[in-house]
């Protein structure tokens, strides 16, 4: 499972960071950093929630 973020869409509102702080971090420069691009299957549910809750539809999962 691989996290793909479309950084052209991302507006750094950090909702993904709130759901999965182990995977996403918005830093003081206001950019989003993906902390772990290939998380284990145990994070799928959290990641799917990030995909749904991202207001910009910037996150997708590559199998």
């Amino acid at each position, binding site marked *: 499972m691989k996290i793909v973020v479309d950084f052209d869409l991302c*507006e*750094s*509102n*950090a*909702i993904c*960071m*709130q759901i999965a702080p182990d995977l996403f971090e*918005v*830093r*003081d420069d*206001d950019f989003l950093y993906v902390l772990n691009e290939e998380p284990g299957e145990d994070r799928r549910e959290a990641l*799917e929630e990030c995909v*749904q*809750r991202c*207001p910009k539809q910037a996150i997708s999962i590559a199998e």
Partner: protein
Amino acid sequence: MPEAGHLHRGVTRRHITIVGASLAGLRAAESLRRQDYDGPITLIGDEPHAPYDRPPLSKQFLAGDWDEDRLALTKPEKLADHDLTFRLGTRATAFDLASRRLTLDDGSDLEVDGLLIATGARCRTLPGTEDLDGVFVLRGLDDSLAIRRAFDAGPRRVVVVGAGFIGAEVAATARESGLEVTLVEALPQPLGRVLGDEMGAVCAAVHREHGVDLRVGVGVEAIEGDGRVERVRLSDGSVIDADVVVVGIGVIPNTEWLEGSGLEIDNGVVCDATCLAAPGVTAAGDVARWPNQRFGEVMRVEHWDNAVEQGGHAARRLLQADEDAEPFTPVPWFWSDQYDRKLQLAGRIRPDDDMQIVTGSVEERRFAALYGREGRLVGVLGFNRPRHVMQYKTLIEQGVSYDEALAADL
């Protein structure tokens, strides 16, 4: 929850009908599929368009920067995977709880098993303006397109009535399109009812810095013109010449079709703490009112993220036995983009809450402010501080005290 227990105690649904095929309705359907519900799902929506996203309608789409394809809530290829039946351009006109019959405006009738209500809300209008060209409200794609066209025609001046979030965003987008804008607000400050006067004043300053003619503390007496709008008369006697007027004075939940249904309607569909309105009937999004136990308050929330989260919760609720149902206790959160400012608010704040800036400053227009009530952290407002808003939102969820939050080093 252990999977076997869930299967054992869950409710088996023959089919699920969702009325309102927009954000809450579609996300509910998708979450049913993620719950491994593989029965039929029918979405009934009165708009002709495939489900689209509303926030860009006052921002990128209104500015002309995005085209319609970018508004899709779920890309068509992905939508097809979910095996959903859409009945678009079809309005639900009545429901009867006792017989579980749903009536549609195409004359058909269907028996529903699980029903999820997600009919959202529509704009309040100014009485007497129905027949005047050039007066708009903004809720749907077609509204945004019509306003865009009116902007493109090069109006002398745009008057925006109501400086709530939608009005403020429309004013910002119009200014950024180079138009002359007057923003009229009856309260002493824009967003004052939500943010309090001090932070409302910051919003006022941002609009004025961007060249908006902001008039606060005045009401609209009349919108006048011969067939099309020519001027707006204000309660202080002043008259503004305008050929486009956008009215943003709040919304009304779409519940008329449920009158006499046997469901309780009171400024929304009344639900219990788990989003259940009646056995096998749930509601979500702008139309739903429920007691949020975290805040001890009955609320109806008109925010994007709530529609997504509550859509999921109300969908799961349809598959759960009563004893497994969990209360829906979110910390409400929304964002609003105006000019280059991203304003975000999490929590439930009142104008008389304690308030303190914890990072940045008002002068820089980049800060986070915390709100406390009775010693509890109840809200956080950010201007271009998304990370802080989310981190303090987590603290609100954890129920930390106001003092602890002020001392936290985030």
